[in-house]
């Protein structure tokens, strides 16, 4: 898919582990890992809101569009 999830970069910038983010967002580690690796089909606004709140970033920082 042309949408790339930049969650790993944002987490590395904030020195936050996957487990810590999952706990603070209220998601399971498996779901967050699947989101990070781009295995998910979509993301709810609710989840995006929680991630942006914890990582103190904009939704645009989490995703990147590249041409196929």
């Amino acid at each position: 898919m042309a949408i790339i999830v930049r969650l790993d970069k944002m987490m590395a910038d904030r020195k936050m582990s996957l487990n810590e983010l999952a706990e603070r967002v209220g998601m399971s580690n498996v779901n967050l890992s699947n989101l990070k690796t781009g295995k998910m089909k979509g993301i709810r606004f609710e989840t995006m809101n929680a991630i942006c709140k914890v990582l103190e970033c904009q939704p645009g920082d989490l995703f990147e569009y590249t041409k196929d």
Partner: protein
Amino acid sequence: MTDTISNKLKKRTFADTVITCLICAAALAASVWQLVCFLNGEGKAYITNAVYNLLIFAEMGLLSLILLEIRKTGKPFSKQIITKLRIMAVILFIGGIMPSYTDIRIDDKTEMVSFAFDAQNIIIIFIGIIIGIISEVFVYGLSLQEDNDLIA
């Protein structure tokens, strides 16, 4: 599917699972008892009752298995559940086609045997058809559940 929805579903199905398991056991016991009565030569009507009770046992057994699977996985839609629902529909359909048997003794020498196909049979057949249709709804539900599981 979120964990809270799954947990709520597991809690909601607890009573249903217990009730269906009890009915299933009762149907099996009744069937065995009717079969024993038939084997003791107490009348041919016992064998039809035994078959009807076996059908109820099969239906309730499948329903129990469905509920147990829902309690185990926390998800109401799966290929196994769809298969079990289809088997339930077929069993009900066969049970509905089966006429009820009545053995009437007129006097010492004359005996009348009656096979009746009445409204009760038609209702059972329709219930079988409805369960078959519901199984198709579950196919759509499974596809929606798979889609939903891939949304974070």
